[in-house]
Protein backbone atom coordinates (compact mmCIF):
# COMPACT_ATOMS: atom_id res chain seq x y z
CA UNK A 1 0.00 0.00 0.00
CA UNK A 2 1.14 3.52 -0.76
CA UNK A 3 1.59 6.13 1.94
CA UNK A 4 -1.63 7.82 0.80
CA UNK A 5 -3.43 4.47 1.14
CA UNK A 6 -2.15 4.11 4.69
CA UNK A 7 -3.24 7.65 5.59
CA UNK A 8 -6.71 7.01 4.13
CA UNK A 9 -7.21 3.75 6.04
CA UNK A 10 -5.91 5.41 9.22
CA UNK A 11 -8.24 8.40 8.89
CA UNK A 12 -11.43 6.45 8.19
CA UNK A 13 -10.57 3.81 10.79
CA UNK A 14 -9.98 6.48 13.41
CA UNK A 15 -13.35 8.26 13.05
CA UNK A 16 -15.92 6.42 15.19
CA UNK A 17 -18.85 8.04 13.37
CA UNK A 18 -17.45 6.82 10.01
CA UNK A 19 -17.45 3.28 11.36
CA UNK A 20 -20.94 3.81 12.81
CA UNK A 21 -22.18 4.72 9.30
CA UNK A 22 -20.13 1.94 7.62
CA UNK A 23 -18.10 4.28 5.38
CA UNK A 24 -15.17 2.82 3.41
CA UNK A 25 -13.04 4.16 0.54
CA UNK A 26 -11.10 2.95 -2.48
CA UNK A 27 -8.05 4.63 -3.89
CA UNK A 28 -6.96 4.44 -7.53
CA UNK A 29 -3.76 6.48 -7.78
CA UNK A 30 -4.71 9.77 -6.19
CA UNK A 31 -8.40 9.38 -7.05
CA UNK A 32 -10.48 8.33 -4.09
CA UNK A 33 -14.06 7.04 -4.07
CA UNK A 34 -15.83 6.92 -0.72
CA UNK A 35 -18.52 4.27 -0.28
CA UNK A 36 -21.61 4.35 1.96
CA UNK A 37 -23.25 0.91 1.87
CA UNK A 38 -27.01 0.96 2.36
CA UNK A 39 -28.15 -0.13 5.81
CA UNK A 40 -31.45 0.21 7.67
CA UNK A 41 -29.97 2.46 10.36
CA UNK A 42 -29.08 5.24 7.85
CA UNK A 43 -32.69 5.67 6.73
CA UNK A 44 -34.36 9.01 7.51
CA UNK A 45 -37.75 8.52 5.87
CA UNK A 46 -38.92 4.91 6.29
CA UNK A 47 -41.97 5.40 4.03
CA UNK A 48 -40.14 5.93 0.73
CA UNK A 49 -37.60 4.72 2.10
CA UNK A 50 -34.91 7.43 1.80
CA UNK A 51 -31.45 7.84 3.35
CA UNK A 52 -31.37 10.61 6.00
CA UNK A 53 -30.21 13.91 4.52
CA UNK A 54 -27.95 14.41 7.51
CA UNK A 55 -26.23 11.09 6.83
CA UNK A 56 -25.56 12.14 3.23
CA UNK A 57 -24.14 15.43 4.51
CA UNK A 58 -21.97 13.60 7.05
CA UNK A 59 -20.81 11.13 4.37
CA UNK A 60 -19.77 13.95 2.02
CA UNK A 61 -18.02 15.86 4.82
CA UNK A 62 -16.03 12.73 5.68
CA UNK A 63 -15.25 12.22 2.00
CA UNK A 64 -13.72 15.72 2.00
CA UNK A 65 -11.72 14.96 5.18
CA UNK A 66 -10.49 11.66 3.69
CA UNK A 67 -9.49 13.32 0.41
CA UNK A 68 -7.51 15.93 2.36
CA UNK A 69 -5.67 13.12 4.17
CA UNK A 70 -4.82 11.54 0.80
CA UNK A 71 -3.59 14.83 -0.66
CA UNK A 72 -1.06 15.66 2.05
CA UNK A 73 0.19 14.46 5.43
CA UNK A 74 -1.50 16.60 8.08
CA UNK A 75 -0.48 17.17 11.68
CA UNK A 76 -4.03 16.66 12.90
CA UNK A 77 -7.49 16.12 11.48
CA UNK A 78 -8.68 19.20 9.53
CA UNK A 79 -11.37 21.25 11.31
CA UNK A 80 -14.56 21.95 9.41
CA UNK A 81 -15.31 25.67 9.25
CA UNK A 82 -18.49 25.45 7.21
CA UNK A 83 -20.32 23.20 4.78
CA UNK A 84 -23.02 24.00 2.27
CA UNK A 85 -25.08 21.01 1.13
CA UNK A 86 -27.48 20.79 -1.79
CA UNK A 87 -29.95 17.92 -1.98
CA UNK A 88 -30.74 17.04 -5.58
CA UNK A 89 -32.45 13.66 -5.48
CA UNK A 90 -33.84 11.35 -2.86
CA UNK A 91 -31.27 8.90 -1.46
CA UNK A 92 -32.67 5.51 -2.48
CA UNK A 93 -31.93 2.27 -0.58
CA UNK A 94 -28.75 1.62 -2.60
CA UNK A 95 -24.98 1.99 -2.17
CA UNK A 96 -23.95 5.66 -2.33
CA UNK A 97 -20.57 6.82 -3.69
CA UNK A 98 -18.80 10.16 -3.32
CA UNK A 99 -15.76 11.87 -4.74
CA UNK A 100 -14.12 15.05 -3.51
CA UNK A 101 -12.17 17.66 -5.46
CA UNK A 102 -9.77 19.88 -3.56
CA UNK A 103 -10.19 23.27 -5.23
CA UNK A 104 -7.43 24.81 -3.15
CA UNK A 105 -5.16 23.56 -0.40
CA UNK A 106 -3.59 26.61 1.21
CA UNK A 107 -1.37 26.98 4.26
CA UNK A 108 -4.33 27.32 6.62
CA UNK A 109 -7.51 26.73 4.63
CA UNK A 110 -8.68 24.09 2.14
CA UNK A 111 -11.66 24.48 -0.19
CA UNK A 112 -13.27 21.18 -1.15
CA UNK A 113 -16.22 20.22 -3.38
CA UNK A 114 -17.90 16.81 -3.04
CA UNK A 115 -20.48 15.01 -5.17
CA UNK A 116 -22.49 11.95 -4.12
CA UNK A 117 -24.29 9.59 -6.47
CA UNK A 118 -25.85 6.13 -6.57
CA UNK A 119 -26.45 4.24 -9.82
CA UNK A 120 -25.65 7.09 -12.20
CA UNK A 121 -22.53 9.22 -11.76
CA UNK A 122 -24.00 11.95 -13.99
CA UNK A 123 -27.13 12.23 -11.83
CA UNK A 124 -25.72 13.15 -8.38
CA UNK A 125 -28.09 12.91 -5.40
CA UNK A 126 -26.30 15.57 -3.32
CA UNK A 127 -23.33 17.93 -3.40
CA UNK A 128 -21.29 19.60 -0.66
CA UNK A 129 -18.97 22.59 -0.65
CA UNK A 130 -16.79 22.86 2.43
CA UNK A 131 -14.11 25.07 4.00
CA UNK A 132 -11.61 23.33 6.28
CA UNK A 133 -8.83 24.58 8.56
CA UNK A 134 -5.72 22.50 7.91
CA UNK A 135 -2.40 22.14 9.70
CA UNK A 136 0.07 20.57 7.26
CA UNK A 137 3.29 19.07 8.59
CA UNK A 138 6.25 21.35 7.90
CA UNK A 139 8.47 18.82 6.05
Amino acid sequence: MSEADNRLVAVLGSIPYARFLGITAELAGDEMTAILPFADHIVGNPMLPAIHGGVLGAFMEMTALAQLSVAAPLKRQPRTVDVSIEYLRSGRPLTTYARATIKKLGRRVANVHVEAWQETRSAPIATLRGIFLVAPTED
Partner: protein
Amino acid sequence: MSETNEQSRLIATAMNEGSPQARALGFATLQIGEGVALLKVPYRPEIVGDPETGVIAGGVMTTLLDHASGQAVHAALATWTSIATLDLRIDYMRPAIPGRDVLARAHCYKITRSVAFVRAVAYEDDPEDPVATAQATFMLDSSAGKKAGANLKPPKATAMGTKPGAAT
Protein backbone atom coordinates in the same frame (compact mmCIF):
# COMPACT_ATOMS: atom_id res chain seq x y z
CA MET B 1 -51.43 23.00 24.14
CA SER B 2 -53.20 23.92 20.90
CA GLU B 3 -54.31 21.29 18.39
CA THR B 4 -51.54 22.34 16.02
CA ASN B 5 -48.90 21.91 18.71
CA GLU B 6 -50.35 18.54 19.64
CA GLN B 7 -50.10 17.53 15.97
CA SER B 8 -46.47 18.81 15.82
CA ARG B 9 -45.65 16.76 18.88
CA LEU B 10 -47.05 13.60 17.25
CA ILE B 11 -45.10 14.28 14.05
CA ALA B 12 -41.91 14.87 16.08
CA THR B 13 -42.37 11.58 17.91
CA ALA B 14 -42.98 9.77 14.60
CA MET B 15 -39.87 11.41 13.09
CA ASN B 16 -37.68 10.40 16.05
CA GLU B 17 -38.98 6.88 16.53
CA GLY B 18 -39.90 6.06 12.93
CA SER B 19 -36.62 7.27 11.41
CA PRO B 20 -33.96 4.58 11.90
CA GLN B 21 -31.05 7.07 11.80
CA ALA B 22 -32.75 9.33 14.40
CA ARG B 23 -33.34 6.28 16.58
CA ALA B 24 -29.76 5.06 16.11
CA LEU B 25 -28.49 8.47 17.29
CA GLY B 26 -31.04 8.64 20.13
CA PHE B 27 -32.68 11.94 19.07
CA ALA B 28 -35.35 13.26 21.45
CA THR B 29 -37.62 16.28 20.99
CA LEU B 30 -37.75 18.34 24.18
CA GLN B 31 -40.03 21.11 22.94
CA ILE B 32 -42.10 21.68 19.81
CA GLY B 33 -44.66 24.22 18.62
CA GLU B 34 -45.14 27.59 16.90
CA GLY B 35 -42.50 26.84 14.27
CA VAL B 36 -39.84 25.98 16.85
CA ALA B 37 -38.31 22.59 17.67
CA LEU B 38 -35.76 21.78 20.39
CA LEU B 39 -33.95 18.46 20.00
CA LYS B 40 -31.24 16.62 21.90
CA VAL B 41 -28.58 14.12 20.83
CA PRO B 42 -27.09 12.19 23.76
CA TYR B 43 -23.29 11.90 23.87
CA ARG B 44 -21.94 8.46 22.94
CA PRO B 45 -18.40 7.32 22.03
CA GLU B 46 -19.70 5.82 18.74
CA ILE B 47 -20.61 9.23 17.31
CA VAL B 48 -17.24 10.88 17.93
CA GLY B 49 -15.43 12.47 14.97
CA ASP B 50 -11.94 12.91 16.39
CA PRO B 51 -10.92 10.19 18.86
CA GLU B 52 -7.96 12.29 20.07
CA THR B 53 -10.34 14.88 21.50
CA GLY B 54 -13.57 12.89 21.98
CA VAL B 55 -15.52 15.61 20.17
CA ILE B 56 -18.80 14.56 18.47
CA ALA B 57 -18.45 14.35 14.66
CA GLY B 58 -19.49 17.34 12.58
CA GLY B 59 -21.66 14.95 10.60
CA VAL B 60 -23.77 14.22 13.68
CA MET B 61 -24.39 17.99 13.99
CA THR B 62 -25.47 17.95 10.33
CA THR B 63 -27.99 15.17 10.97
CA LEU B 64 -29.25 16.78 14.21
CA LEU B 65 -29.65 20.25 12.65
CA ASP B 66 -31.36 18.81 9.55
CA HIS B 67 -33.73 16.75 11.69
CA ALA B 68 -34.53 19.63 14.06
CA SER B 69 -35.09 21.97 11.09
CA GLY B 70 -37.53 19.49 9.52
CA GLN B 71 -39.52 19.30 12.74
CA ALA B 72 -39.59 23.10 12.97
CA VAL B 73 -41.14 23.19 9.47
CA HIS B 74 -43.83 20.72 10.53
CA ALA B 75 -44.41 22.83 13.66
CA ALA B 76 -45.00 25.88 11.44
CA LEU B 77 -47.49 24.15 9.12
CA ALA B 78 -51.19 23.93 9.94
CA THR B 79 -51.57 20.55 8.24
CA TRP B 80 -49.09 17.75 7.58
CA THR B 81 -47.30 17.75 4.25
CA SER B 82 -44.24 15.90 3.00
CA ILE B 83 -41.04 17.96 3.11
CA ALA B 84 -37.51 17.55 1.75
CA THR B 85 -34.32 19.48 2.49
CA LEU B 86 -33.29 21.58 -0.51
CA ASP B 87 -30.12 22.95 1.00
CA LEU B 88 -28.39 23.20 4.31
CA ARG B 89 -25.52 25.44 5.31
CA ILE B 90 -23.71 24.80 8.59
CA ASP B 91 -21.10 27.03 10.26
CA TYR B 92 -18.99 25.39 12.95
CA MET B 93 -18.05 27.91 15.66
CA ARG B 94 -16.24 25.61 18.06
CA PRO B 95 -15.90 21.90 18.91
CA ALA B 96 -18.69 20.41 21.02
CA ILE B 97 -17.65 19.75 24.63
CA PRO B 98 -16.59 16.07 24.93
CA GLY B 99 -18.95 14.03 27.08
CA ARG B 100 -21.84 16.48 26.83
CA ASP B 101 -25.23 16.06 25.13
CA VAL B 102 -25.89 18.57 22.36
CA LEU B 103 -29.14 20.48 21.83
CA ALA B 104 -30.43 21.94 18.58
CA ARG B 105 -33.04 24.67 18.43
CA ALA B 106 -34.58 25.26 15.01
CA HIS B 107 -36.97 28.04 14.02
CA CYS B 108 -38.99 27.99 10.81
CA TYR B 109 -39.39 31.74 10.32
CA LYS B 110 -40.98 31.87 6.86
CA ILE B 111 -43.26 29.64 4.81
CA THR B 112 -44.21 30.28 1.20
CA ARG B 113 -46.41 28.18 -1.08
CA SER B 114 -43.50 25.85 -1.98
CA VAL B 115 -40.60 26.61 0.35
CA ALA B 116 -39.91 26.82 4.09
CA PHE B 117 -36.95 28.79 5.54
CA VAL B 118 -35.29 27.70 8.78
CA ARG B 119 -32.49 28.85 11.08
CA ALA B 120 -31.04 26.52 13.68
CA VAL B 121 -28.39 26.56 16.38
CA ALA B 122 -26.59 23.72 18.18
CA TYR B 123 -25.26 24.21 21.75
CA GLU B 124 -24.83 22.53 25.12
CA ASP B 125 -26.11 25.14 27.61
CA ASP B 126 -26.48 28.52 25.98
CA PRO B 127 -27.74 29.24 22.43
CA GLU B 128 -25.63 32.44 22.59
CA ASP B 129 -22.51 30.22 22.78
CA PRO B 130 -23.18 27.93 19.81
CA VAL B 131 -21.27 24.88 18.61
CA ALA B 132 -22.78 25.40 15.16
CA THR B 133 -25.43 27.42 13.38
CA ALA B 134 -27.43 26.39 10.33
CA GLN B 135 -29.59 27.89 7.63
CA ALA B 136 -31.84 25.55 5.65
CA THR B 137 -34.55 25.62 3.02
CA PHE B 138 -37.15 22.90 2.56
CA MET B 139 -39.39 21.97 -0.37
CA LEU B 140 -43.02 21.57 0.70
CA ASP B 141 -45.23 18.77 -0.64
CA SER B 142 -42.00 17.17 -1.84
CA SER B 143 -43.40 13.72 -2.44
CA ALA B 144 -46.58 14.86 -4.19
CA GLY B 145 -48.03 11.76 -5.82
CA LYS B 146 -45.18 9.56 -4.51
CA LYS B 147 -46.50 6.48 -2.80
CA ALA B 148 -44.92 4.56 0.07
CA GLY B 149 -42.06 2.44 -1.24
CA ALA B 150 -41.53 4.76 -4.25
CA ASN B 151 -37.77 4.66 -3.73
CA LEU B 152 -37.68 0.91 -4.08
CA LYS B 153 -38.34 1.26 -7.81
CA PRO B 154 -35.80 2.67 -10.26
CA PRO B 155 -36.41 6.32 -11.18
CA LYS B 156 -38.29 7.07 -14.41
CA ALA B 157 -36.37 7.28 -17.68
CA THR B 158 -36.25 11.08 -17.38
CA ALA B 159 -33.30 10.75 -15.03
CA MET B 160 -32.59 14.48 -14.96
CA GLY B 161 -36.16 15.33 -14.01
CA THR B 162 -36.66 13.38 -10.80
CA LYS B 163 -37.82 15.28 -7.76
CA PRO B 164 -35.35 16.65 -5.25
CA GLY B 165 -35.29 15.62 -1.69
CA ALA B 166 -33.41 13.55 0.78
CA ALA B 167 -36.54 13.66 2.87
CA THR B 168 -36.06 13.34 6.58
